[in-house]
């Protein structure tokens, strides 16, 4: 967290279980802007305060769009580490092997079966950050982003584009199964309506609602 935030945001000690609250910060990492949550390490503990910290961490993990799991490279992986690795499967996740400045007890290869993105760095020395940036950009596909291409800027636009694509597909299948054009055009009308809504060339209830949801009209 502190490496990415560029300041002493979280308290760091050698003592496991130091982080308990979720510490949040918005950081810019290469092309990506991340709303970062630093959570407690996931481990069994008798301390009720830490236990609450761990359960908050698990909840946050469920909600997160991107998981960055940090492992201590200088110590062999524990059963808890493997449990965490299991939970990364099928998620957008990066496994970070920290303490890259110390002799290695864990090899990156051991983490490969769980996640495609493994990065070795040293938070203390500030080394290996570029590899993490690369992994984040790759995962978020930001490195493939073409700023001159058409852009769907919000969920409404995205849904309109999906609706248009779906309607065109239905129109095509109606045509192929032998329906007359009067039926096919209904799908095309829907597709067109979705696209016009996207381009702002037609007024629909959705746009109207959007107008009111985003602007305070006042009295």
């Amino acid at each position, binding site marked *: 967290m502190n490496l990415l935030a560029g300041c002493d945001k979280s308290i760091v000690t050698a003592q496991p279980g130091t982080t308990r609250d979720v510490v949040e910060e918005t950081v810019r990492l290469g092309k990506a802007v991340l709303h970062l949550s630093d959570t407690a390490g996931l481990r069994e503990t008798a301390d009720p305060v830490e236990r609450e910290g761990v359960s908050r961490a698990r909840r946050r993990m469920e909600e997160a769009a991107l998981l960055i799991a940090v492992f201590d490279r200088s110590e062999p992986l524990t059963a808890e580490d493997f449990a965490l690795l299991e939970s990364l499967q099928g998620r957008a996740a990066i496994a970070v092997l920290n303490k890259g400045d110390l002799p290695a007890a864990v090899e990156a290869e051991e983490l490969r079966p769980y996640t495609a993105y493994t990065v070795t760095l040293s938070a203390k020395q500030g080394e290996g950050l570029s590899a993490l940036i690369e992994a984040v950009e790759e995962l978020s596909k930001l490195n493939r982003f073409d700023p001159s291409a058409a852009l769907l800027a919000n969920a409404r636009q995205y849904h309109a584009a999906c609706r248009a694509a779906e309607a065109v597909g239905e129109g095509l299948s109606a045509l192929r199964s032998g329906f007359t054009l*009067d039926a096919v055009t209904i799908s095309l*009308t829907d597709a067109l309506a979705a696209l016009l809504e996207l381009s702002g060339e037609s007024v629909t209830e959705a746009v109207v609602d959007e107008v009111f949801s985003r602007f305070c009209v006042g009295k």
Partner: protein
Amino acid sequence: MALYPMEEYDVAVIGAGHAGIEAAMAAARLGCKTVLFTLTLDGIANMPCNPSIGGTAKGHLVREIDALGGQMGIAADVTFLQSRMLNRGKGPAVHSLRVQSDRAQYHLYMKRLVENQPGLDVKQAEIVDILRTDGRASAVVTRLGGVYPVKAAILCCGTYLEGKIHVGEVSYPGGPDAVSPAVGLSESLRQMGLPLRRFKTGTPARVHRDSIDFDKLERQQGDEIICPFSFSTTKPLVNRVDCYIAYTNEETHRVILENLHRSPLYSGRIEGVGPRYCPSIEDKVVRFADKKRHQLFIEPMGLDTEEYYLQGMSSSLPEDVQIRFLRTIKGLERVRLMRTAYAIEYDCIDPLALTPALECKAVPGLFGAGQFNGTSGYEEAAAQGLMAGINAARKVQGKKPVVLSRSDGYIGALIDDLVTKGCRDPYRMMTSRSEYRLLLRQDNADERLMPIGHEIGLVSDETLHRMEEKYRLVAAEEKRLQKLTISPDPALNRLLEERGSAPLTQAVRAAELIRRPQIGYRDLLPYDENRPDLPAEVAEQVEIRIRYAGYIARQLRQVEQMKRLEGKKIPPDFDYHAVTGLRLEAIEKLSAVRPEHIGQAAGISGVSPADISVLLVALQEGGT
């Protein structure tokens, strides 16, 4: 001129063409004491152009008129000579009925109808002035000086208003078929502040049957099974005549092009705007220069006449040129003209000056319908006449106007287009003008509109109940087919394969099979032992409903979208100038049209979606 008082009426209808008849019949049947004025009693329900009713989209209008309790469909069924359902290959949304009519019989039928309608007086008189009291229409004045006090008046003046006929280099004041034009009324309307403009239309020549070589032409026969226009026509109908098809050729086009300088259109003597979708033959030859030939239909005018109509050949070229170019056509080499083709210019109103009830915004109590409102076509005229007649009567009786929505029918789309978008050339109905074609089919006009017609008071209980019974049968049969299973069968699978549809490997619901475009309700009869004996129109509805269920549902959702915008009402006195952020063009258009709701506002050309958003915000501010 000395004026003298005449009898008082609730409603006066000016003009007894297709709009005027519907208007007068509706007003009288709704209990208004009504008078129908015509320049000549011999011109009632005249067809000055094509002796035909219906056609693409126009056929929809006629069926809707019938479902609402209008007259055109019944008259068309009684007097038709040949009937065809057009676009049969193109799906139910665009099937359109068209008949060739006996022009003289149609006139006589409608003349008898209006003469015998209780509460309706029919008078031969020219109306030259409309009088107002407190800004409202209060009397109509005849050329002879008779003043008829009225509570409402409906202008259905067709192409007679300051009519001017053009044939080549010759032009003179006149209406169609040698009837005098209406002179003076325009001035009266202008003085009331009504925005009049000049439109133009044209008609082809009529030729003698003996001068046509029919064996050189393609013959076009009517349908074997005839679908009537009116939902109340029950007796079987038969075709009485054939029509014929001929083609122009390069020689025809050469004669036309060489004489263009003698056309009033190209020499600039005609100022009126002509119909884009019904161009004259010289227009077609010029605009579609790459086309080597144009089709024309040769159609009888009636059983008691030798006159034939040349559909597609309207022209304002000089008479001698008309004869020359017609004689280049195969089958017409020795053709003899009986009536010359001509163009006609006339005054009409900018329909943006009308409310959706077809009432002049500037003159309460004064309504307009038909060509006066800027449309073209008998069916468009009749549809507006009916609505204007209904709304004039309701106004007199203190009732709220009936305004059909775009999703109720083509009539709704027609009137909304006129009063919201206006028109720059004579407006013709087309299926493409309706967003909801699959819902607004000609075959279900009864289901859509009869309840409204009944509510208004023009459709009898008996007619309504017959319709309800029809759709009860449709619903029951649909339900039965949803349950009925059909097992794989060698004969059925052979049929499926022949039609290019996958054979059955396991039992399926009958409805699922009907959903396949290749298989019809009738095809399944051999596999459906308990099928009830249903009328053809019920079977037709069952098949359409099942096959198009998904598309109909989709279109209904589109209607819902529009209804929500229609639900956002705009106060009639809303001040668009006070809205910050509206563009000047939008302010002007909105102030002129005064839309009743956001849906209508969004349809105005020159009003952008951004303007609508601004307007919505302003309405929200004012309304809450």
